């Protein structure tokens, strides 16, 4: 099966043919323009860095997804699996003296050793923002609002952004005072979305009444702002209450701003539980089994780089958005009209083409067509307008 490897691609990476590449570039451009319109400045970081950058703030198991290699001095390098850690490193070092908050955005391919058979790619493109040095309702509202606008700008028709708050979950777990092993197992069931295991664990550890009700709510609480009123028992827990109030405030502001129809609350959204510290969110769209967007607050990451600083952000998966858009059967965008320039004298053809391009037109050269008729036929076939340059014409 390794025959002809020269003609094959490894699993999990893709070629983009002209139409797909154009769609991706267009989406990338729309998103970056949107981010810049909100004051986010683009940064570019290297494709590979020292592996330690990507290990910061990550659970050890996550390292399995890294593409690692060794340089000639024996140091371990890795391809970036996401953009947040490199940007955190950048801010904690070269941008340390900048006035906060900092608004940065990016568009980059990232690399993860994932299982392609499970709908995951090994190289994919993310566009996103990081808002650094700001916490509180204002910063969280800005980032969620921008996330919704990004999906609107991307042209998705039916989508929702779900908001969770991992600080509520962390607060409830802290107040339950479970022994270490039990805490780890409850956390694993919650992160693994395993309701069945959670119920068995509740029985095993004798969790009853409000304690059990709270855990169940963390799993099931879902809906609009009114759903938060059903969170009664969680409100009794001091370590969780203020975070729940924070979530409600964010939602209230965004509803008044008019984003209510795109938002819901779901305390079961935990994302990467150990990494995030506050409000987290995911974008979902009809017809795709995976989120198209994800993000949240990670106030503890930058201190790993020696610069304690609150931060939040999100990333959009470009390929996932494009997959959904392809299935929407949108009418193909009209390609701009263009010219086919041919003639008897090559220099004249080049000159004429330059003139036409100055008007913004797309111009293709045809250097091997011998007659005006031939050029007209070829142009018709390619849906271009023919232009014939006679000898001497270019010198005028």
């Amino acid at each position, binding site marked *: 099966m390794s025959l002809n490897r020269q003609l094959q691609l490894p699993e999990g990476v893709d070629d983009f043919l002209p139409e797909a590449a154009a769609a991706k570039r267009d989406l990338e451009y729309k998103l970056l323009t949107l981010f810049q319109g909100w004051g986010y400045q683009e940064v570019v970081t290297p494709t590979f860095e020292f592996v330690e950058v990507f290990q910061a703030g990550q659970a050890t198991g996550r390292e399995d997804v890294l593409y690692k290699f060794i340089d000639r001095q024996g140091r371990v390098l890795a391809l970036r699996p996401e953009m947040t850690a490199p940007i955190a490193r950048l801010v904690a070092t070269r941008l340390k003296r900048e006035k906060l908050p900092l608004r940065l955005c990016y568009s980059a391919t990232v690399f993860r050793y994932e299982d392609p058979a*499970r*709908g995951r790619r090994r190289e994919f493109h993310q566009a996103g923002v990081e808002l650094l040095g700001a916490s509180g309702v204002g910063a969280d509202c800005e980032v969620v609002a921008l996330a919704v606008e990004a999906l609107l700008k991307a042209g998705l028709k*039916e989508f*929702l952004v*779900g908001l969770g708050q991992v600080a509520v979950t962390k607060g409830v777990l802290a107040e339950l005072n479970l022994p270490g092993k039990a805490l780890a*197992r409850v956390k694993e069931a919650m992160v*693994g*979305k*395993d*309701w*069945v*295991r959670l*119920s*068995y664990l509740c029985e095993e550890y004798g969790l009853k009444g409000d304690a059990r009700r709270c855990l169940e709510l963390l799993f099931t609480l*879902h*809906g609009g702002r009114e759903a938060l009123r059903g969170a009664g028992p969680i409100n009794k827990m001091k370590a969780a209450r203020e975070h729940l109030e924070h979530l409600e405030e964010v939602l209230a502001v965004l509803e008044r701003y008019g984003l209510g129809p795109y938002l*819901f609350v*779901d305390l*079961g*959204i935990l994302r990467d539980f150990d990494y995030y510290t506050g409000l987290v969110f*995911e974008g*979902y*769209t*009809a*017809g*795709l*089994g*995976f*989120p198209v967007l994800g993000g949240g607050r990670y106030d503890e990451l930058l201190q790993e780089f020696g610069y304690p600083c609150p931060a939040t952000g999100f990333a959009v998966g470009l390929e996932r958005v494009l997959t959904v858009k392809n299935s929407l059967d949108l009418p193909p965008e009209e390609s701009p009209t263009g010219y086919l320039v041919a003639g008897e004298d090559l220099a004249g053809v080049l000159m004429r083409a330059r003139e036409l391009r100055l008007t913004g037109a797309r111009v293709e050269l045809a250097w091997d067509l011998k007659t005006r008729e031939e050029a007209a036929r070829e142009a018709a076939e390619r849906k271009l307008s023919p232009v014939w340059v006679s000898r001497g014409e270019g010198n005028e």
Partner: protein
Amino acid sequence: MNDMVVTIALPKGKLGQETIKLLSVAGLPVEGVSTEARQLTFGFPRESLRYIVCRPTDVPTYVEHGAADLGIVGKDTLVESGADVFELADLGFGYCRFVVAAPRRKWEEAGGSLETLLAGSRRVATKFPRVAARFFSDLGQQVEIIKLHGNIELAPHVGLADLIVDIVSTGRTLKENDLVEVKSIFQATARLIANRVSYRMHHERLQPLVEKLRWASYNLGEKRDFHILSS
């Protein structure tokens, strides 16, 4: 969005019958539905429901990718698939256990110690390589796993493997093949699973169905009090 057609993936084979019974007790349409017929999809436009019938091992895949919103599948298959889905209810039926089994003679020679047995035997045949690999690596044992697709009990007989990891419900097959259960890994029953995006996006539409199925599984009286070991 609330008139969307909900797709439920049903397993072919031994869980099929009980699954249909569960749907019927839950008040969902089952007229003409069979998991063993040639027909693979059953639509009920009035209820905005659609069933698709798949091989049990494919149910987690359909649900993980969102090709089905909900699915019914054994915990054994689910664990082996490693699929990233919501596990919403223990449906109680389809009870079985994951066990490590060895030929009786070898087990006696090893004096009833798994460690001694593993000292000389490293090849494990199984239909569930992921479950087996995890179990042995948690024990700190390195083994060679041989993936088979069925009739695992044959492997030790013909010298393909020293041990097997398989699911048993009554233990009769083991006995008939002169194998003994050496260690129980965990116990499994059928589960209701959901796609993680669909369950969030169409929560209002799916949650009533989930409640109905949960209620039906209680009412089928299949709920037994077994201890689920951590998996």
